[in-house]
């Protein structure tokens, strides 16, 4: 009796369910199977660069969403200079150009001994190497009165691009004439260290045009922040900072910037310096590694994922590499640029290990551009090396110098806008 292909497959699948999973999950071919979980900047870059380094390896990317919105430049969406579409990218090129299998599903568990991951709808998937790029999650319960519900309604964080970005935009536009827009900045470590200050700057610029007597207040649990020297110089030049008419007021920890509790209904934030009533409140909470990292048991006591700094292989679970914001990367900031750079190092290490080679010396970089206005950019650029399993920053690079040339901040602003396009291509296309 002839058996149809479909019936054969069905029969095999049924038999497979009875076999030990590891046997079933063994990938075809000798080149190996790499599963990547998380299709953000880290995961997408890892998939693409692994393909460039290892043409024969089977690569599967697991990501629930079918589009990705970069946090990069989402501040521009908030103030109306860009649309959500401008920061939205698909997985089409990873599929068609790089032969990466992209599965839109959620990883709900894994078995590190048998080397399988459990998908929500798609069953079990075996791997030789697993790369995870879990991103971040918000910690909601640290301050009285602030919880998930408040974060999703009256005090959005907007720290993941999408619906909250648009909510922030709506709240900004609703600030009455002469009103106050207040930001609660997060403690370190958090995603995109200059992000809060760029956002506050662009809000001030928006007010200059649409609501010139309104004010921006930043409550900060820190006494310093990245690029604070060029940021504050630019605030002086553009927004009257350090004058009685400053549009931006930055209240650091030393001046009582730490928040004690919030009253969401009244729109009041109680900080050490006193009570602040505001017409719009952007609360950016403390952060930890994304839920996935916890679910897979990859985190340390601080809520981040310790890794071998040369390969990004987890120090907790073998053959699992953790990249991006969730990883412990010492001097490297939690930025998209860092995630992209770490993804390339991890991809090369995975390709080397699968081929039986010892991974070579890693090379990493981070460049963060920030806009202080649409025509005024500043940046930080650093090169990193690994010494004794610590990522150190080489001393020579650093922050934009302050010059009196009008061309310098203007060029940085133009570079920033164009860079976003090139960078997204390096990750997704």
């Amino acid at each position, binding site marked *: 009796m002839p058996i149809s292909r479909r019936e054969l497959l069905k029969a095999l699948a049924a038999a497979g369910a009875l076999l030990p999973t590891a046997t079933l999950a063994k990938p075809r071919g000798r080149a190996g199977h790499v599963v990547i979980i998380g299709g953000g900047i880290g995961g997408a870059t890892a998939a693409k660069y692994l393909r460039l380094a290892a043409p024969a390896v089977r690569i599967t990317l697991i990501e629930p969403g079918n589009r990705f919105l970069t946090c990069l430049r989402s501040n521009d969406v908030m103030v109306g200079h860009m649309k959500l579409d401008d920061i939205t990218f698909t997985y089409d090129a990873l599929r068609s150009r790089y032969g990466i299998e992209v599965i839109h599903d959620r990883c709900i568990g894994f078995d590190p001994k048998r080397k399988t991951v459990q998908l929500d709808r798609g069953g079990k998937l075996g791997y030789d190497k697993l790369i995870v790029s879990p991103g971040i999650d918000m910690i909601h319960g640290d301050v009285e009165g602030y919880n998930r519900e408040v974060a999703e309604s009256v005090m959005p964080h907007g720290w993941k691009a999408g619906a909250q970005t648009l909510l922030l935009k709506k709240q900004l536009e609703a600030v009455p004439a002469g009103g106050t827009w207040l930001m609660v900045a997060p403690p370190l470590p958090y995603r995109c260290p200059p992000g809060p200050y760029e956002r506050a700057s662009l809000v001030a610029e928006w007010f200059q045009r649409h609501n010139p007597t309104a004010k921006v207040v930043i409550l900060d649990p820190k006494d310093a922040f990245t690029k604070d020297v060029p940021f504050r110089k630019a605030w002086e030049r553009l927004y009257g900072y350090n004058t009685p008419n400053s549009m931006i007021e930055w209240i650091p920890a030393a001046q009582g910037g730490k928040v004690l509790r919030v009253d969401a209904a009244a729109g009041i934030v109680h900080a050490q310096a006193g009570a602040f009533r505001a017409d719009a409140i952007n609360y950016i909470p403390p952060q930890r590694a994304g839920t996935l990292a916890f679910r897979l048991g990859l985190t340390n006591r601080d809520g981040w994922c310790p890794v071998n700094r040369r390969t990004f292989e987890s120090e907790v679970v073998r053959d699992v590499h953790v990249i991006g914001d969730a990883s412990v990367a010492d001097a490297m900031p939690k930025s998209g640029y860092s995630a992209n750079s770490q993804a390339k190092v991890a991809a090369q290490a995975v390709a080397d290990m699968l081929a039986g080679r010892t991974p070579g010396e890693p090379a990493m970089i981070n460049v963060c551009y920030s806009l202080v206005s649409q*025509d005024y950019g500043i940046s930080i650029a650093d090169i990193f090396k690994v010494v004794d399993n610590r990522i150190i920053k080489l001393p020579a690079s650093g922050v934009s110098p302050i010059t009196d*040339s*009008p*061309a*310098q901040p*203007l*060029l940085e602003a*133009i570079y920033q806008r*164009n860079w976003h396009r090139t960078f997204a291509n390096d990750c997704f296309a």
Partner: protein
Amino acid sequence: MKKTCLALTLATLLCGGAAVAGNSARTNAMPEWDSDQLEQILTRANTGNPVEGERLHHYLYCSACHGHDGNSPSRNWPSLTGQKPDYVMKTLLDYRQDMRRDHYRKAEVMTRMTRLLDETQMADLAAYYASRPAPVVPPQTKPLLAKKGARLARDGDGKRGIAACSGCHGEHGESGITPDTPALAGQTPEYFILAMKMYRDGMRTSDLGGVMRMFAKPLTDAEIEALAHYYASLGSKREAMR
């Protein structure tokens, strides 16, 4: 001089108007100069102060892309030394008036940079670049291709309606009389190729009356490349001052 005028007149008579009309049919046509208006404004081109121009070249980061001494160290951007003042002035004005594309997109860097300048400063920059010798032959110049380009540049190709480039740009690529005929000697070949292709595709519209668009139209990629290396090879022979 006579030859130049002839070529230009001929070009304008034959196809200048047609080329412009053809281009404006594109969806995103760029604005173009009224020749009287341009002539008026270019009278200032020869009044610049080269010392002030050199200061601006560094102060405004022109040097970042066009080179410390105006010899472009990159393939993306043109060298500016030895360029004639009215061409530089016109180009800066083109950018400021939002008339230019670069690399097939609306030019952003130069458009924004030129808005930092007034016309006196533009003339100063023009005077500085004009005061310097022609760019040094770029290291990537290919002598074999240069040889091929030489014949076409000197003689053109009458059968295919290609005029001799030297008619307008000078026997040695030292430039011609109209404000839109630049010096080409020593120019970065990759930049030259890009500019010619943009003319050919009607994407660069800074030529008065569409003359370059018309001359570039029949050229093949290989011919453009040969011309690029020919003109690059005509640059100064000495090492760049560093």
